[in-house]
């Protein structure tokens, strides 16, 4: 149980720190670290419940999210080779504050939930919700398309954690499908980032405002 708490605190810290870092490369590294933590939680869960499916899932988490996605993102970053720093709509301090507020929201909303059959501390569930919200916050506040990809992966990690805690992982096929989805999404985002860079000489999503009523 202690290791679960340590790992989940690690997840929370990585998520919060994603709001702070300025360099995209660092953010990608943090994301990889976060995915490793998540993979370890999955292994812990597998050992605790004795489900062999979860070992496969854990391995996939580490492979796809810990290694594959960061590699794709790094590769894209190398290809476009400019503006290594993030651009945000709000400042770092404000986004840290917002992240803290979201954490509070997550704790408040989950504290009253009565979920039968969950034998892990409530705080971990709160962290998963907080990850989801902060991932969305990242997607909202960042201007660069690649950071939105990172936000998406954070959100997915939060969902994955919630599923792991509540139902010991989703059905195996669903999990595989989700992995495929997220991987494809990241590849698409990378490709789009590359295209955007070629067209606009920038990956700022402000340029994508023509489609409106």
């Amino acid at each position, binding site marked *: 149980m202690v290791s679960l708490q340590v790992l989940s605190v690690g997840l929370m810290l990585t998520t919060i720190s994603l709001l702070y870092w300025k360099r995209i490369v660092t953010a990608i590294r943090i994301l990889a670290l976060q995915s490793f933590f998540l993979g370890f939680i999955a292994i812990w869960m597998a050992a605790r419940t004795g489900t062999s499916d979860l070992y496969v899932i854990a391995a996939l988490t580490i492979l796809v999210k810990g290694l594959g996605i960061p590699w794709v993102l790094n590769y894209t970053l190398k290809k476009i080779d400019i503006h290594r720093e993030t651009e945000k*709509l709000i400042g770092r301090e404000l986004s840290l504050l917002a992240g803290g507020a979201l954490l509070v929201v997550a704790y408040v909303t989950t504290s*009253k939930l009565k979920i039968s059959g969950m034998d892990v501390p409530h705080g971990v569930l709160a962290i998963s919700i907080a990850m*989801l919200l902060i991932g*969305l916050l990242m*997607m*909202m506040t*960042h201007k660069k398309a690649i950071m939105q990809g990172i936000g998406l992966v954070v959100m997915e990690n939060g969902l994955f954690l919630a599923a792991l805690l509540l139902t010991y992982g989703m059905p195996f096929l669903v999990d595989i499908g989700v992995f495929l989805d997220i991987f494809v999404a990241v590849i698409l985002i990378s490709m789009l980032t590359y295209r955007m860079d070629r067209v606009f000489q920038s990956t700022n999503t402000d340029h994508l*405002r*023509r489609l*409106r009523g």
Partner: protein
Amino acid sequence: MFASGALGVDVLCMAVFLLASLVALCWQKAVWVGHSAGMLASAGLAVAGLFGLLQPQLHKTQAQLMVRSSIHSFTSIVYRTNPLSDFFLLLIGSVGLLVSLYGVGYVREYRQEKGAVSVSLLLAGVLAFLASMASVVLAGDVFTFLVSWESMSILSFFLVMYEHERSEIQRAGFIYVVMTHLGTVFLTVGFFVMAHYAHSYQFSEFSKLDMPTTAKSLVLLMMLVGFGTKAGLIPFHIWLPRAHPVAPSHVSALMSGVMIKTALYGFLMVVFLFFGVGQIPLWWGMVVAAIGVPSAVLGILYALLQHEQKRMLAYSSIENMGLLFMGVGVSMLLFSLHQPDFAAFALLAVLVHSLNHALFKSLSFLSAGSVLASTHTQNLNLLGGLMRKMPWTAVFALIAALSISSMPPLNGFVGEWMLFQSFVMLAIIRASLWVHIVAILLLFALTGTGALVAMAFVRSFGMTFLGMPRSEAVTNAKEVSWTMRIGMGALALACVLLGVYPFWLLRLLEPSIRLLTLVDPVGVSPSIGMNNISWLTMIPAPIHSTIGNFEPLSIVLALLVMALLSLWLFRRYGNRASGKKARTVGPVWSGGMTVDGRMAYTASGYSKPVRIAFQQLFRTSRQLSVTEGDEHFPKRLLYVHRIPPFAETYLYRPLVSALLVAANVIRKVQNGQVQSYMAYLFLTLLFVLFLVR
């Protein structure tokens, strides 16, 4: 699949319409097949309806024709007949027959102008339109009714758009299709609410409807909007004066004479058959009558100011639908005041007037169409003196005009007299003060409308057929072909016959009234019982009195005697001053000048007093400008007066602009920025999270 004889004939006729429509569509040489099949099927519908009314006991065996297309009861096609639908079938069939006959000649002009393909398209459209109207009144469940209703609307939209090259017609068609769909939305919702309470989509189950009064009231209001849109009640009328005049004239006749009556059918069906006459709240009748009043009064006021004959007739249709709904409202009021016999009489008046209106209004449209075909203009200010060129059309138009103005020996008088009687009944029965006040106001509206109608049709007939020609359009006019004259003549004959001998119609309507009101018109009450009066004398006033009774035959006799007397007097004494047999034919005395068409009273001039009297209402904008010569010695003047359409100005335009403003506000939400879309997601997520908590 079970069908009694009459229903079988009805469905067969609809099939013939559709088949003939297909034949006309695919095989352009076979226009005559389409024409004759259309007339045959219309006659079949009329005969089947007549038969159903004469043999009402046949309906006791719940004849239903059912085509189940799937296991879902919602998508089955169900037809049934009852005396109410029989009456409307008779109306559709008889007017459809004569209009089809007229159409044979009328479409010839389009053949020269637009080619054979387009004529067969028009024919196919008219045939399918007739089928869809029959299908509306025969429909036996919600699905069939709504599908028929929508096909009727869409087919009539296509017919309105027949001369689609002209931009004002495109605009008219657009407004029509928008309004009719709005109406159908209300109808659909209303029918579904009823189906919810009836636990069935079958109309036969609807009659045992068990609904709370609030739900009924809501449905009633929806029906009033939905059917009121089709009926052209003010303020839902804006499509009608645009769409009816621009369709080919025989289609206008069908739309104004028949199609808007299907709205009356639907409304009567919902109120009297589904809701029942047992407990009608007082305010329902007030609302229905109150929506009829502005339609009648404003309808005829605007009709009086129109320059185009068909547009004027369209406004007059609004006025007549207003009268009919006033009648329905009075009938409902009398039911809620526990006077079922009088209420039945009021409803009888409504049905009688609706058939009469179908006859004289389609006759008016057909004669206007003849004038249009022959002179290529329907601007009253450019016509005049057509009586010499087109004597037959003039006679038919005169009969139509007299009938609309409810002159006694013609059918228009019968319906309006009965309506008047029922309003009087409402005024004199024992009820609260407010009911009396409403009744008096309704009587004011009815009589005022009657006077204005007479003025409008004196103007329309006089400006078209009397006086001197005001433009070259008239000098080249010639009488229309014999098929058109037969179509109009038969309608005119029907107007005269039903005016002189209305008992036949009243007897025929007994089963419909019995179905709707559960009042047996024969013998239940001495006041409206029709078997205790002699067939040849009179329609009794519903209240015992000697002055209210109406004896059409004696009126005819009196008129004949007076006409002969005056003719004799004229012969005997008229020429004495200038000596016997000394008749000179010459121009009208003109004080030494040559009389010119331009000197004649114009249509605008004739209706000017009304325009001045109601200028607060019309808010006419006038403009006088000198186009030639200088300010003090003008040679040519241009006088423009424009009457803003009130419903558009005061209701629809503010509504539309408010909608646009709201749309602009909402549009800010979609700003194209990915991040803000995510913020919406985010906020929604937070909101849901707090909801869960």
